[in-house]
């Protein structure tokens, strides 16, 4: 992570390319959040790289004035891994979509997370394939009618955070496109050493308008947003409800504060370092956990280990090709 004079601003992270998303697309807000975050955390355009796959979301790198690589569908985590291992001093961000990252690219996502390569992964979840014009994705709801599911999708959706936890991810967070807290999440991801996975709920007004309205809407949103804070009880953004655990059954329920004598003390307290807790709250029925679900900074970082082995080898000497060729049995013919 690089520091620079605080003179940089959002503008310094905006490229000269015209932004080509549909009017009203949630991607605009995410882009703006990123362009605002980077100067704040002291990133520099020249040491920052955005690597993406294919999808509407994956056009993101073109709009950043940093280095960027718009690769192929699903493979961004692997490209980014090669880049980060060989250039650990760079800040590497992966931009992906629910199709790019969880359908064709699911395996690379799994493996970058389990290796804990020190990079940030932002998954734009609009529950649809935007770029190919609206087929259902691995996060689409059952019954979703799309051109490829004319009588409704029968695929059970997956929860991106749970997939990440299952892959042994050490940083799992969730936000949404137009949220004010998005820069904070990007900042937390940036500051985490290891793979930081951030799911961003994103509205696609063209093919899946309003799927997240329940959570992101100004009016009804706060009732359903469960912003997490480490060490604090889990209360919805409107302050009215909370999450309670039955320790016997290990089941959670959403309860109304004040109803039936429920107080803040009855609620689950967030502990960012507890993977089981993160699992538990990652897929709640009525409310959506937002913020940092899980953070384990103690795990070894993959690129550190690569560097350590290289250092060790270098200290033993080497690099002499002639000596290499002549190692083992050789003989002279005269």
């Amino acid at each position, binding site marked *: 992570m690089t520091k620079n004079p605080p003179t940089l601003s959002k503008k310094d992270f905006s490229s000269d390319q015209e932004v080509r998303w549909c009017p009203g697309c949630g991607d605009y807000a995410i882009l703006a959040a990123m362009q605002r975050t980077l100067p704040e955390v002291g990133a520099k355009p020249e040491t920052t*790289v955005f690597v993406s796959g294919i999808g509407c979301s994956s056009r993101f790198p073109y709009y950043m004035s940093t280095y*960027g690589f718009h*690769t*192929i569908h699903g493979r961004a985590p692997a490209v980014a891994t*090669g880049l980060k*291992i060989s250039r650990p*001093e760079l800040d590497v961000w992966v931009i992906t979509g629910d199709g790019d990252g969880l359908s064709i690219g699911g395996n690379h996502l799994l493996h970058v997370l389990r290796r804990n390569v020190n990079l940030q992964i932002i998954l734009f979840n609009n529950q649809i394939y935007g770029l190919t014009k609206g087929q259902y994705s691995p996060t689409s709801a059952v019954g979703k009618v799309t051109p490829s599911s004319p009588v409704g999708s029968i695929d059970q959706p997956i929860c991106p955070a749970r997939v990440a936890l299952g892959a042994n991810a050490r940083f799992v967070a969730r936000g949404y496109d137009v949220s004010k807290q998005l820069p904070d999440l990007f900042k937390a991801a940036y500051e985490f050493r290891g793979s930081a996975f951030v799911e961003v709920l994103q509205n696609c007004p063209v093919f899946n308008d309003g799927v997240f309205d329940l959570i992101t809407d100004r009016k009804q949103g706060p009732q359903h947003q469960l912003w997490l804070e480490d060490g604090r009880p889990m209360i919805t953004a409107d302050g009215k409800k909370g999450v309670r655990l039955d320790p016997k059954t290990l089941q959670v329920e959403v309860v109304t504060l004040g109803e039936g004598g429920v107080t803040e003390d009855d609620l689950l307290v967030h502990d960012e370092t507890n993977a089981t807790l993160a699992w538990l709250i990652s897929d709640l029925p009525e409310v959506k956990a937002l913020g940092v679900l899980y953070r384990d900074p103690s795990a070894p970082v993959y690129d550190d280990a690569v560097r350590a082995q290289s250092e060790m080898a270098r200290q033993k000497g*080497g690099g002499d090709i*002639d000596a290499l060729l002549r190692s083992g049995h050789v003989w002279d*013919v005269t």
Partner: protein
Amino acid sequence: MQTPTQEVERELRQSVVIRFAGDSGDGMQLTGTQFTTATALMGNDLATFPDFPAEIRAPAGTTYGVSGFQIHFADHDILTPGDEPEVLVAMNPAALKVNLPALVRGGLLIINTGAFTRQNLDKAGYTTNPLEDGSLAPYRVLAIDITALTLASVQDFNLGAKAAGRCKNLWTLGLMFWLFGRSRESTVEWLRRKFAKDPNLAEANVAALNAGHVYGETAELPQGVGIYQVAKAELAPGTYRNVNGNDALAWGLVAGAQLAGLPLFYGSYPITPASTLLHALAKLKSFDVVTFQAEDEIAAVAAAIGASFGGSLGVTGTSGPGVALKTEAIGLAIATELPLVICDVQRGGPSTGLPTKTEQSDLFQAVWGRNGDAPLVVLAAATPGDCFYMGIEAVRLATKYMTPVMLLSDGFIANSAEPWKLPRFSDFEPFPVHHHTGPVEGFHPSLRDPKTYGRVWVKPGTPGLMHRIGGIEKGQDSGNISYDPDNHHAMTKLRAEKVARVADDVPEATLDSGEPGGELVVVGWGSTYGAIRQAVAQVRAKGRNVAHLHLRNLWPLPRGLAALLRGFDQIMVPEMNNGQLDRLLRAELLVDARGFNKIAGQPFRIAELAAEIERRLGVAPSPHANVDVRA
């Protein structure tokens, strides 16, 4: 006790081909390797061919668990492991069953009778015991209870039955050393190094080795079994070592990266027969090498591309099925014009095919096997030692032309060892890569060298040169996404032209042997080199005007090739596939190239090539069952 080796009367031979064969657990590869080292130290020229079973560890005694190692050594320049063994060591009935058909009639057969139990005979599918039923009469048989003699030789070491029995390959090696007049010294040294932590075991093995040797010295060898000598070959002076293709390739890639002044990133996923390339490079971390065992082949190549984007030399290696998986990503490297070396160690196909057998059937895939108009450079190594040079060449072309380079090797080259005269690294011309380090007036990522058309390579981290690349078509004059029709046409032409220009940067087509304008030219590529060269020499020795041309540059083809080939009456293209180079030559040069194809997972024999050349010259009828003519 008899007089020492050197004073005994030995029958002089110009060359010998020996095959060691036994159970996977019998240590035949080790025996062969040690014999090879001792032979190399004797100053013979040699070539080897290990032949593993497909199973990791097949049940003892089965025919499909037989492991073989063939060595050919001579007092002259040889290039192949030999068509047929003249000496066969069979450690059990299954080894005899599998390998006897290859032994020349009258050949020497050394048999461990201790393994010829009823159970083993059954497992090998023998209804009668070949030692007793007269079926071995056409051979010179040396039948010894090696098992018993080995156990006796190590009894003082208290090894336990299993470990003691394992020494029988060393006993056999000792006998073979005696028969062929090789020194035990290098093996003794090796044993003491290998078992440094268990000196008792080391000495037990040395004792078995010596016992085998002593047996040879003292036992009454049967009628027809002599002891042999092969004089030193006249090899070019220099320092030599044995090397197999994958080791040589690993070293070549590392050497190439040093000449380019770049760190090397190797992304790979294990696959036979390419895995040992990963293993070799994993040991070279001190050479600024990072190896990455990816989750699959796609991730392996993608990571290599990411590393190349970052300014390293990205390399990925695999075999045919892995190349298939990498296809889409290779297209990305072509579109973004990043350097990338893809090593394809070919094996028998299609699909899983014959993973442990050799084949040359990925040429089409290498040259034409991608979506879109997607040209890249294709090279092929001809011998294990050649892998070193081609490794360097692949790096040179990839970095100079900013292009993926596919380097073809195969299972035969990868596993067989040959003595290799070591080059001096200082004799290689460096080809350092220059990266910009700061802002450049008028910069955009589609800028290119006007001569090579190589695109500018800027490392992330460079101030002022931030840019974006990707797989969508890019404007020739800006590097930005462009849907302009004329631009796409121009860029497609440019990508093709860039690769075509490599032909100006590599040697013109030349004959490997023979003279221009003869009766027939044999055009080969890859691991058929030795067999073709020898076959052509044989036919030339009979006074026929034939020639040999061996291609290392498969795409683009070298300059001057069409003219050279058109000068011959006939063009014969032997390949270990169903006809691919013949098609390529016809497509590109419009010459009447005619294939000669063997798709048996095994290298050509010199004799079958020579016979086919003669047949085409009208001298002899067609040979062998599993070789076909394709036109």
